[in-house]
């Protein structure tokens, strides 16, 4: 049976190697997993209790057949946990709870999509790109980085070969658009015709500030924004209430679990 609802599994690392400032790790699992773009895993398995908690990583790719599967993660070294992951080798054990959370929702056939990935946020939107490509839906990608070297390797980008589809944005102008993803989006939105706007939907993952500013550009124009949030998590499957973010619904605010009601939220609801 494919893994399509949360399960705790033990796997073994097949590859774990750097690409630019990122690492890409493939793990052999006891079964194929089925996931929605935007869903994630809680990854652990290192020896000892320090770090204690598993780390959330977006599911970048999953392959396999009956009784045999692999999952891929793309990550950046941010602290102790990811540093530890980056030191693991082929054959080392990994444990993971997956697939978790609510992924992106896709609109009808007439929709076009902009996928925004700030920093390592691309790892969350790439599976959406793969899905849209399969569906033959129209999409473009905006990938933000501080500088050229911090962009994802070109051969990792789904549909990266299609000219005009992928828009790298660098803060220092060393590659692609000179400016942030938000700047690029503002630029394009200004030049967009109303029918195009009507069809557009934005799926985004990146720093909270990027998500906030993109939302404040797109929402007033009636463009739906799905924002994938990143909070520190203890469990990842909704039982600790540690990962909440404030949301507004029918005028009232409340705390929602990023791991369960998210990580993808309708940007209109998020209290930024």
């Amino acid at each position, binding site marked *: 049976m494919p893994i399509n609802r949360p399960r705790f599994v033990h796997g073994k690392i097949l590859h774990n190697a750097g690409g630019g400032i990122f690492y890409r790790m493939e793990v052999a699992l006891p079964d194929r997993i089925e996931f929605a773009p935007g869903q994630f895993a809680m990854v652990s398995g290192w020896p000892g*209790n320090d770090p*204690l*908690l598993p780390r959330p990583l977006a599911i970048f790719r999953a392959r396999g057949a009956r009784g045999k599967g692999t999952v891929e993660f793309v990550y950046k070294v941010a602290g102790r946990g990811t540093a530890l992951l980056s030191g693991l080798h082929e054959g080392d054990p990994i444990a993971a*709870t997956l697939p978790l959370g609510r992924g992106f929702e896709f609109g009808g056939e007439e929709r076009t999509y902009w996928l925004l990935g700030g920093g390592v946020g691309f790892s969350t939107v790439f599976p959406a790109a793969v899905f849209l490509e399969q569906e033959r839906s129209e999409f473009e990608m905006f990938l933000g980085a501080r500088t050229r070297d911090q962009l994802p390797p070109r051969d990792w980008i789904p549909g990266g070969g299609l000219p005009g589809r992928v828009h790298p944005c660098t803060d220092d102008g060393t590659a692609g658009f000179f400016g942030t993803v938000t700047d690029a989006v503002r630029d394009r939105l200004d030049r967009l015709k109303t029918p195009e706007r009507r069809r557009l939907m934005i799926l985004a993952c990146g720093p909270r500030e990027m998500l906030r500013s993109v939302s404040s550009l797109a929402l007033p124009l009636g463009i739906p924004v799905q924002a994938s949030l990143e909070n520190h998590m*203890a*469990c990842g*499957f909704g*039982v600790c*209430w540690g990962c*909440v973010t404030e949301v507004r619904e029918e005028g009232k605010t409340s705390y929602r679990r990023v791991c369960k009601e998210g990580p993808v939220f309708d940007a209109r609801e998020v209290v930024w």
Partner: protein
Amino acid sequence: MTQAAVPDIRARVGEVLLKNPVMSASGTFGYGLEFTPFYDISLLGAIIVKGLSLEPTAGNAPPRIVETSAGMLNAIGLQNIGVERFVAEVAPRLADAGAAYAANIYGRTIEEYESVARRLSGVPSLIAIELNASCPNVKEGGIAFGSTPEGLYGLTRRVRAATGKPLWVKLSPNVGDIGAVARAAEEAGADAVTLINTIVGMAVDHRKRKPVLSNVTGGLSGPAIKPVALRMVWEACRSVKIPVIGIGGIQSAEDALEFLLVGAAAVQVGTANFRNPNACVEIVEGIRNFFIREKIARVDDYRGRLVL
């Protein structure tokens, strides 16, 4: 020496007989139903649900958690759906799943505690009420009650009078003499004491010069606190005659056995559920296998058998 081929791992907590000595700890297991994708929750000794209050509670602003060495601090602020929704929506589903479950409760006043306890008393499938007198997170919460024997005695007596359900009192470790606090609960009529709740701790960001948690302090849990928990459970077992439920840093069957060995009637597993959602059932299996290997026929043949 072949009697123990299939050991009897049932555990007795006063009048409550559990399938096995392993319970999930309040606040780390949601309302129990969240674990149904992972395993059949009726396999556990019992589930202790997230602390319930009279009204739904919003909890603290984020950040609410931060990892520490072999532990974590939490300041959830007891976010919960309130006792009414629990009784109406969750309790029936737990009963349907065949799960043994107890409700962890708290209030801002003794009267609120009483009301929650009363409301739960009418739920037939509920096996016990666990009184959280120790949560260190909410300023108006249990801290005043749980931190002195007198305070705890007063609270326990009132809640004892308010419910006919077995009453377990969960103790705060943030006290000078855990034995005295356990005795106060016993004298006030508790059927069991549960310990330990989290130890008050703090984390700061030395660069931003700010506390990491919005609540400034939080409760420390996880393997880091196990030695302290084990010592306190041992002391409590020597201080009271009522059953002691041991908790704090249990990650494996070996850890759970340690608590039984110093005298705990049963154990609870908290933070371990986060890294390994199967932790509780794996611990049940591990205890069973240990009993088989060591030819131990029943829990009482092992429990409290520490040789000094």
